[in-house]
């Protein structure tokens, strides 16, 4: 009864997981690691206050996106604007502009079954998640921001150190 159980070492350990630039899942869904880009976390009491400081219109409802800015909370936005956009730092103003360009990466999940792949670990009803909508949520235990750019393409924002796990968890999804 007390025989020691001999557990062989794993072929792949969690520490061996590494990001890749592309992957094709068996169901035809592709994963693509987006190149680095400038991104900011924007905070203010209202969309108007923020818009006035950064000189751009920002979405007002949680979940809405507008020209590369997603409203994540009543006082929080994620700016992922076109390359070359400069967001002023709002010094002295009642806003918070923080450069988070290097904080995370974006994994692009694309294909007819993209929603189903994400549903493997995300508890939201992504089939009914409107195109153009973005939200913070989780994939299993990892916090992500899911942004549906097109019906068959989601962008998944994730903090850097969680990205290898997420990448391989997505790759492991089995459709059918």
């Amino acid at each position, binding site marked *: 009864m007390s025989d020691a159980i001999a557990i062989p070492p794993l072929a792949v350990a969690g520490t061996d997981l590494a990001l890749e630039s592309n992957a094709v899942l068996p169901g035809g869904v592709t994963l693509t690691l987006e190149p680095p880009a400038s991104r900011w976390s924007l905070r203010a009491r209202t969309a108007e206050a923020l818009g006035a400081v950064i000189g751009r219109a920002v979405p007002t409802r*949680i*979940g809405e996106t507008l020209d590369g800015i997603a409203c*994540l*909370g*009543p006082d*929080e936005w994620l700016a992922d604007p076109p390359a070359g956009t400069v967001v002023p730092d709002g010094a002295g103003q009642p806003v918070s502009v923080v450069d988070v360009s290097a904080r995370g990466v974006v994994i692009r999940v694309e294909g007819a079954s993209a929603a189903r792949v994400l549903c493997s670990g995300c*508890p*939201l009803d992504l089939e009914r998640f409107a195109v153009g909508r973005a*939200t*913070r*949520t*989780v994939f299993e235990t990892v*916090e992500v921001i899911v942004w549906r750019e097109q019906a068959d393409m989601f962008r998944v924002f994730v903090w850097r150190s969680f990205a290898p796990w997420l990448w391989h968890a997505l790759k492991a999804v089995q459709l059918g």
Partner: protein
Amino acid sequence: MLLIRCPYCEEDRPEVEFVYGGEAHIARPLDPAALSDQDWEHYLYIRRNPRGRHHERWRHTHGCGRFFNAVRDTVSDRFEQTYKAGEARR
């Protein structure tokens, strides 16, 4: 897994996006130094723990990030309602 209505997102969201925050409507005293030891102990440690309607805080941590208040029945584990932080007790 419960569904919890976030009063900020105005949407039912899965429980795994939320973190429980203890009993609601326990405001931090504006001048803690003015409180007796007993009153401070009460503020720090004494909670109602009712059977039935419980006013409690939740945070939509993995969503909009906001703390809010909820009324949950501790017997049935059902949410009666949720409302924004700062709103009067319901």
